[in-house]
């Protein structure tokens, strides 16, 4: 019987230990177990020997319990072992590893109150909205040391269900893996790390909604890894669907893994460098066709090549949280796309759109030992987004698509897993149609 099967017999071992004693032994291969050397002291009384034997056994049990708690030794069952406990090999899977299934999750609720008038003083129809934005469960399973499954199941706005990612990961090397399935597109700062406890602001930066359409996920395969402070991901995924592009960005082009058109594929990758703990700089690139074989004029098919790149940086040092990002999207064959979509004038899809933000926050309790894990972080974010930065010939820019957002707020984390955010965003554009808004957010992650 394999020594790792001892987990199954640990309760019995303890009973035996308390009753008639045990004869099992355990040794750490390269260290001395002092209790073993203490047994059978010459001339000691029988009581002394019993006491030493009990001490030895107790030490063995303590080592066993501690090793099992540590997760360092997976428990492996042979088919004979499985039969011995009355289970077929698959049914016995749960015995094979104390850490098979993994469950986690996060969620966020958002109250938005919009100004009664826009910049020009025109009355606005919308007033307030209270939305349970996201309720998420992560579910994963670790098959063995090399293979694992990971997924994120999302209920959005309390009544829409999505799979945000679901992939199988093959950990080929300690710092290199291959994964396939529905993947988060590795661009920007928020798309892959979009839990509300991770980013400042009741709402995600607008750049990372309109230029980088987070949460952006598509089907594909790719590699990931890290070495010496440099991490990377490189995927081949299905491309965006140009039919969903609009004057306000490419967000509608996401296919979200659902019967995705795959005539146009894309490459997405990123490299991040961590020169020092808490400091990260990096870049990402997405490029691929968005035509999906469906954008054609006069029997000529257009690829609608879409290229998005971003540069980003983040520094978290002694309570200071500084982030900056610039993203730009170029869309080929934009004029033809607009023609096919029937868009004219200033309602057309742009040839180029861009956006960026700089954000700073400071945890004012960070230097107080008494505060423990409580964090109170005022923040400010300045952001500019233009979804019609450059229009194709024959199309006009709308004066309302270049917006400036100035957000001032504060977040409170009573514990690191729970956050309450309150902020106010001032929105301006050349058309004077910006509408300010006040937000209250509640988020959690576990």
């Amino acid at each position, binding site marked *: 019987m394999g020594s790792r099967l001892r987990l199954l017999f640990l309760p019995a071992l303890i009973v035996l230990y308390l009753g008639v004693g045990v004869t099992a032994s355990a040794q*750490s*291969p*390269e*260290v*001395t*177990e*002092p209790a073993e050397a203490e047994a059978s002291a010459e001339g000691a009384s029988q009581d002394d020997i019993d006491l030493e034997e009990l001490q030895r056994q107790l030490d063995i049990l*303590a*080592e066993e319990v*501690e090793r099992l*708690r*540590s*997760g*360092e030794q997976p428990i492996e069952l042979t088919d004979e072992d499985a039969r011995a406990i009355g289970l077929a090999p698959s049914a016995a899977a749960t015995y094979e590893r104390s*850490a098979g299934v*993994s*469950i*986690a999750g996060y969620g966020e609720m958002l109250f938005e109150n919009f100004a009664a008038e826009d910049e020009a003083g025109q009355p606005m129809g919308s007033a307030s909205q209270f939305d349970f934005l996201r309720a998420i469960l992560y579910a994963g399973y*670790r098959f063995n040391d090399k293979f*694992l499954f990971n997924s994120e199941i999302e209920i959005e706005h309390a009544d829409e269900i999505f799979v945000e990612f679901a992939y199988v990961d093959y*950990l*080929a*090397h300690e*710092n*290199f*893996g*291959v994964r396939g399935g529905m993947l988060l597109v590795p661009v920007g700062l928020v798309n892959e790390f979009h839990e509300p406890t*991770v980013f400042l602001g009741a709402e995600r930066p607008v750049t990372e909604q309109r230029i980088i359409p987070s949460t952006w996920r598509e089907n594909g395969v790719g*590699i*990931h*890894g890290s*070495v*010496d*402070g440099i991490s*990377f991901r*490189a*995927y*081949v995924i299905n*491309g965006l669907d140009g039919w969903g592009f609009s004057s306000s960005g490419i967000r509608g082009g996401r296919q979200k893994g659902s019967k995705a058109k795959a005539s146009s*594929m*894309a*490459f997405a*990758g990123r490299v991040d460098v*961590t020169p*020092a*703990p*808490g400091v*990260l700089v990096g870049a990402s690139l997405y490029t*691929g*066709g968005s035509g999906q074989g469906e954008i054609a004029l006069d029997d000529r098919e257009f690829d609608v090549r879409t290229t998005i790149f971003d540069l980003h940086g*983040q520094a*978290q040092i*002694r*309570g200071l949280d500084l982030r900056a990002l610039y993203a730009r999207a170029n869309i080929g064959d934009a004029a033809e796309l607009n023609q096919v979509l029937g868009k004219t004038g200033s309602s057309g899809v742009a040839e180029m759109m861009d956006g960026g933000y700089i954000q700073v926050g400071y*945890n004012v309790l*960070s*230097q107080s*030992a008494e505060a423990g894990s409580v964090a109170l972080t005022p923040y400010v974010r300045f952001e500019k987004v233009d979804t019609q930065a450059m229009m194709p010939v024959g199309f006009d820019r709308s004066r309302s698509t270049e917006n400036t957002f100035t957000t001032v707020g504060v977040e409170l984390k009573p514990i*690191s897993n729970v956050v309450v955010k309150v902020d106010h965003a001032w929105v301006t554009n050349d058309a004077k149609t910006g509408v300010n808004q006040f937000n209250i957010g509640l988020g959690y992650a*576990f």
Partner: protein
Amino acid sequence: MKCTVVVGVATLLLFPISLSSQTGPMTREEVLASVYPGATVEAERVFLTGEQTQRVSELARAEIESPLVARYVAREGGRVVGRAYVDTHVVRTKPESLLIALASDGAVRRVEVTAFLEPREYMAPPAWLRQFDTQSLSDDVALQRAIRPIAGATLTAQSATEAVRRVMAIDEVLEGRGRR
């Protein structure tokens, strides 16, 4: 489309070439051998008393999940040169074990991951763990103070920092050093 696929496949094939350094969990024995080369290492299991547990919790500002402490005492020529502790804790829903090696005065010499059952991408990188080297028990050993967070792995950073504080507090109590 063909161009994209070619670029993608080429990238998939070329990236692994440069990979060589190990960043996965090490075994206890590997860590002990590298931190205390040439030393005799003896394993101990210590059961904290209720009073010790409470004192450790106060010093560490962290919960003590179990009074069972696994530690290794390293000696050279009969002289203690360091003590290493195994701290097992839950990161998100799965456990992580750290081997936290201290010098004889209680300062951190090395922190290494010996087991990590969450998805590997949340594991603390070695460069981040090096922040603990030479640290002694103080209020400054905390996230957003002397210890910087890990982008995208907040819970890992939080639990590892608590573990190091906990181990330094246990060592301080067991060895009867100051702050009493």
